[in-house]
């Protein structure tokens, strides 16, 4: 078939658009739709009739997107509406989120599936509470691509200063949020400047037009977590001979023959057959709807999770989350709600409201309950175990809603920020990995370990750090540097690391660990979750760096058993990962190690 009939390269991009009432959002959308040819003649004619009927001087583009009768009558948009727009390279689903009543709830709804957000600012009003609120929500939902559209530039004579003032204010503001850099666009939606094309009005404008920004978007900017997560949606069982587990892959890739772990039953089974919507397949990836047949009978039903045995999520009955309250009734501590996360539904109570964000100032306010449109941080406890990744790490797994079990209304939308394990739950999952960085003094172990720990923390992963120097300062202050003491130092360190890992922390340890025997000992104590990482640098390099002056003192005979000088460092033979710190930047080393950890988590 001809290429233009199938458009093989068309990507689907979901955008949310928000602004305060009268910032010009509907006008902008109307113009985009009209000028990209999405409006049919009869729709335009209806628009003309409507405008004439209301006695408006010219056709009001804003009414193209006002759906409900009540909205037309009151001249406001009251619910999220979805618009569709196609350009030669992109297919857009635009969630048009109203800026009036229930603004927060609507924007959170519209933005929950968005790959990008457009936020309108009326240049005459500058940055308002509403703007700050919208940016806050983008940050809460982790939207990777955000543009601020400074509209109505025609009303300030297209003055660059008016635009840059807003830009400067917002740059300072978003510095306080976790957010990607914003794109700034100056427009007049009514006139059409910088919407579809550049006009002569703002020669100073260096940013893209709205359309250019949209066409430059990608659906693939989300963190694509490597770990396999398949929430079981439905068990297909037409007769005794067939039993398949249907689900949409939240992340990762599954192949025929893979060994899977079913949660919460913790039973293992192999993928015997796999099919996607087109029939039998050898492998399937993120976003695909699959049906999996396992090689043995295991206890699996809707709401369960299929994962890889060595890469299970946190099992917990208690976690913390940022929630946006949507119900009309306020949150009640201790009340039983239904919680839906992936396909899993459990009972849940809010055990504590830690604070509410003032979404205009970003201050935290102490409150004990949340009301409609509040965003706050809460602690939640569930009746049945949950299998969680943080939202930042895995959007599909870390998102949930709370439902009032009496009225069936959705009362809150939440994103998991951290998980706390209960003892019982700890038994349910494999231990977190213990990463053991070995290498000469000065090879870069601690620097890389710190960088990795920091990255994991940013992903919301609980981390513990153990360092040789620290341990020797306290727990092991009775030990010297004889081979026996060195061995004892490592034995204790390994046991401490194991305890940390068992409590769910990825434990990053930096110890010289000079001999193969030492490494075998540590491996033995820690077991399966041990990841040996060799930070490789030649003795000459390390001695040249000599950050702590140890080598100099060793050469002078002051440190008799110093590794590399007075005692041996055996070249490691069994490391899972070798990082050449002479040829590779710290950043790159940290990236490679973090990736390995995330695969094994």
């Amino acid at each position, binding site marked *: 078939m001809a290429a233009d009939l199938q458009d093989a390269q068309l990507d689907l991009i979901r955008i949310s658009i928000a602004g305060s009432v009268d910032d010009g959002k509907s006008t902008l959308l109307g113009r985009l739709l009209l000028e990209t040819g999405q409006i049919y003649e009869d729709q335009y004619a209806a628009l003309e009739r409507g405008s004439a009927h209301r006695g408006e001087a010219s056709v009001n583009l804003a009414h193209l997107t006002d759906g409900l009768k009540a909205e037309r009558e009151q001249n406001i948009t009251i619910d999220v509406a*979805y618009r569709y727009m196609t350009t030669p390279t992109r297919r857009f689903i635009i969630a048009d989120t109203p800026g009036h009543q229930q603004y927060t709830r609507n924007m959170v709804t519209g933005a929950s599936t968005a790959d990008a957000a457009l936020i309108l600012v009326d240049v005459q009003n500058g940055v308002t509470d509403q703007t700050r609120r919208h940016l806050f929500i983008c940050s809460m939902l982790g939207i990777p691509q955000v543009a601020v559209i400074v509209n109505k530039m025609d009303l300030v004579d297209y003055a660059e200063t008016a635009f840059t003032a807003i830009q400067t204010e917002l740059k300072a503001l978003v510095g306080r949020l976790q957010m990607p850099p914003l794109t700034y666009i100056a427009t007049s939606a009514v006139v059409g400047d910088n919407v579809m094309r550049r006009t002569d009005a703002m020669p100073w404008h260096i940013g893209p037009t709205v359309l250019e920004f949209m066409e430059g978007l990608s659906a693939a900017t989300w963190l694509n977590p490597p770990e396999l997560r398949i929430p079981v949606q439905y068990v297909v069982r037409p007769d005794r001979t067939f039993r398949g587990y249907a689900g949409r892959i939240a992340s990762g890739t599954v192949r025929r023959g893979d060994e899977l772990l079913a949660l919460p039953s913790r039973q293992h089974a192999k993928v015997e057959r796999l099919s996607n919507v087109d029939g039998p397949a050898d492998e399937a990836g993120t976003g695909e709807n699959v049906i999996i047949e396992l090689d043995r009978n295991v206890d699996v039903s809707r709401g369960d999770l299929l994962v890889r045995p060595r890469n299970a999520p946190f099992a917990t009955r208690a976690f913390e989350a940022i929630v946006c309250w949507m119900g009309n009734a306020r949150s009640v501590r201790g009340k039983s709600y239904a919680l839906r996360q992936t396909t899993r539904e459990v009972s849940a109570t809010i055990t504590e409201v830690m604070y509410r964000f003032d979404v205009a100032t970003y201050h935290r306010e102490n409150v004990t309950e949340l009301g409609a449109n509040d965003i706050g941080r809460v602690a939640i406890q569930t009746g049945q175990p949950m299998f969680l990744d943080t939202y930042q790490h895995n959007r599909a797994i870390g998102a949930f809603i709370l439902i009032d079990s009496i009225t069936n209304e959705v009362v809150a939308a939440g994103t998991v920020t951290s998980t706390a394990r209960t003892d019982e739950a700890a038994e349910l999952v494999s231990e977190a990995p213990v990463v053991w960085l070995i290498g000469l003094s000065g090879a870069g172990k601690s620097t890389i370990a710190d960088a990795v720990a920091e990255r994991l923390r940013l992903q919301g992963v609980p981390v513990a750090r153990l360092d040789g120097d620290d341990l020797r300062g306290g727990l092991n202050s009775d030990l010297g540097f004889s081979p026996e003491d060195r061995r004892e130092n490592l034995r204790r360190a390994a046991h401490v690391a194991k305890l940390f890992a068992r409590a769910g922390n990825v434990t990053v340890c930096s110890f010289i660990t000079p001999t193969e025997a030492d490494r075998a000992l540590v491996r033995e104590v820690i077991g399966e979750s041990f990841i040996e990482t060799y930070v490789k640098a030649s003795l000459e390099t390390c001695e040249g760096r000599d950050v702590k002056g140890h080598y100099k003192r060793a050469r002078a005979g002051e440190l008799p058993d110093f590794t590399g000088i007075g005692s041996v460092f055996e070249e490691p033979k069994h490391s899972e990962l070798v990082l050449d710190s002479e040829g590779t930047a710290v950043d790159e080393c940290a990236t490679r190690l973090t990736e390995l950890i995330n695969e094994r988590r």
Partner: protein
Amino acid sequence: MNTALRELEAEAVYVIREVVAQFERPALLFSGGKDSTVIAHLASKAFAPAPIPFPLLHVDTGHNFPETLEFRDRLVERLGIRLAVHYVQDSIDAGLVSEETGPRASRNALQTVTLLSAISALNLDACIGGARRDEEKARAKERFFSHRNTQGQWDPKSQRPELWNLFDGRKHKGEHFRVFPLNNWTELDVWRYIAAEAIELPSLYFSHERETIERDGTLWAWIEYIQPEPGEVPVKRRVRFRTVGDATCTAAMLSEAATVEDVIRELLELRVSERASRMDDRRSESAMEDRKARGYF
């Protein structure tokens, strides 16, 4: 298939499976049109190798194109799916509704009553429909899982928020849901999908010669259910239908598009919307919303 279409297919299959997982007695509302045919196709893919685990419900106004009924029966046979037919005529006979009269009479509005009585007779808790958000302004705000109260009514002002892909299908006794797996599809997406998957459609969708009358600038099939007005004479024209439903409110358009590819090419050039060919929408600017609030599809 382009990447956008693949994503829309995945979304729809997910929604259809979610219906079966969350509801006890769902059904697929079947109109004979392309959208419900595409859903039937998606459902067969969603559960293969198992058969589609819900029946097809056809609310029959009695004013059908024969091609539609013949197509319906073949589809049911091929998919091995159960068919339930409820007749508007029965609602009329039972005195639940009274028939419109005159040349513009249509049973389209009466369908609502028959549908609601079918829902209660079959005790359905979810009806899957082929409506799409791009069809009409009021539909732009439709949810995937759209709640209906015990009277079958839609309240656009108190819709449940729908976030991520977490659908809330909890309900009280007597309430039900309408579910729209194709919400995010456009007319062009539907046709591109039909092309990519080689889905069979009623021949009405393709150019054929037919006796038609012209009324208010619109072409109508000259069939027994349409009462002529003075001076209206049927003329043979090459036409096709852009939407297919009740024969009295489905307008024809002049067209030479004989294949799916022709139709796509035609759509890429077309300047009027799909619903312009439906009489029921032309009655007022908020016609669709009013009908939806009463429990229409």
